[in-house]
């Protein structure tokens, strides 16, 4: 009796290991095809429990879009992010942040509800550094994945203007003791 129970347990453990291995390879398999089919695969896998792979899927989709640049790609990414958000895999804030970081002219790094003197000026160098890093992501999203050079150049110009305006404004804030 004991022997048969042990054998059953061994079989169950072996089956479980097989399932885990199968699941891991299923989640980690590369997304193939064009952007739309890659998005469908990613959505399907996320629905099947591969939620921990969301970040790698997103980067993989960006690479796919980079190889097939098209002005409609931002819309596909937007739909994808909203679907993922609806399923609770990422928060609304994460979805907005990701979309805007890659596909919007505006900078996620320059946000805030307090005045510029008190919120941005004390960390101006860090903000500018973050914006420069974000511009690289916009280069990927807007320029390389969406073939939208005009929007990318607007973002680039916005960065330059922000740098100039913040330099002047923060000096003025300092001169007045904030």
């Amino acid at each position, binding site marked *: 009796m004991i022997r048969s129970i042990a054998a059953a347990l061994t079989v169950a453990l072996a089956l479980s290991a097989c399932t885990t291995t199968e699941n891991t390879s299923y989640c980690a398999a590369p997304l193939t095809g064009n952007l739309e089919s890659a998005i469908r695969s990613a959505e399907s896998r996320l629905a099947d429990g591969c939620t921990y792979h969301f970040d790698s899927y997103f980067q993989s989709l960006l690479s796919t879009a980079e190889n097939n640049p098209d002005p409609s790609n931002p819309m596909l990414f937007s739909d994808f992010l909203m679907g993922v958000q609806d399923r609770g895999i990422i928060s609304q804030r994460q979805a907005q942040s990701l979309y805007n970081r890659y596909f919007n002219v*505006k900078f996620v790094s*320059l946000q805030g509800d307090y005045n510029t003197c008190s919120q941005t000026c004390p960390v101006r160098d860090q903000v500018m550094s973050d914006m420069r890093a974000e511009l690289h992501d916009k280069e990927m999203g807007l320029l390389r994945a969406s073939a939208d050079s005009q929007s990318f150049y607007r973002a680039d110009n916005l960065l330059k203007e922000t740098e100039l305006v913040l330099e002047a*404004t923060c000096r003025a804030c300092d001169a007045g003791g904030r």
Partner: protein
Amino acid sequence: MQLRSSLDSLQRLLLALPLIALSATSFAAPNSSGPVVRLFPTTVLEDIRETGQVAADMENNLQEVIHRLDLQQQLYTESLCQGADGDQGCERIAKQLGATYLEMLNAMSDRLPEMEHAVNSTRASLEKRLREELGQRTTPTSLQNALLGETTPAVKQDKPALRGRSGVRLSDRFKQYYELVATHRDGPGQSLAVVAADIYLDMEEASTLIAATQQEIARASLMEQLNQSFGMITPEMAAVVGGVKEILFGESGGEAPIASPPYVIGETPFVSPLAM
């Protein structure tokens, strides 16, 4: 070396004053949803106008003396005085040239306090507006919106797009500022933040250089007075005069920057519900 240093300082000042540029992207399309930012009230406009007037007076004052310097330099060259040591005629021309150069330094020296006052006044009024309007009444988010709302598709060919030497007369430059901000000051939601920031930063730089130049002119004058004893013309003198002409009177244009491609309004762009 001292003379060279003073001349460099003088030249830097003259270079700095017209650096205030009109960013082409500052000609804003109205953003009615944004906050109304008033960076250029009447007091600031008046300061800019007055600074332009002082600059014009300084140019007029220097124009005549620089013209005389040109003629004397021409005479010196045509008389083959270069290297003609001991020639009394050449020594006389050289002394006259040095005296005119001194006159130019004195003219600068006379006008600089007034220029300093005007520049400092403009700087102080802009500083206050920038602090209050952009620093304290604007969030980073709304600042970004204001900057984007100001972006325009049209690049005006007759105006420089970035800070730098433009080959435009100093007084004309201030006149352009005045016209720009005076024309746009009542526009709905137009902040002209970039223009204000640009003018303010250049006023700061100009203010520092004016102070440094005032100190250096005294030394340059002394050195030239000593040179008068020997009747020498230095290459630095010619270089400074050339620089003054170029900057004040725009006799040679600077290289125009390459503008960013304009934003073409074509098909309605996709707007994601996730967009900020």
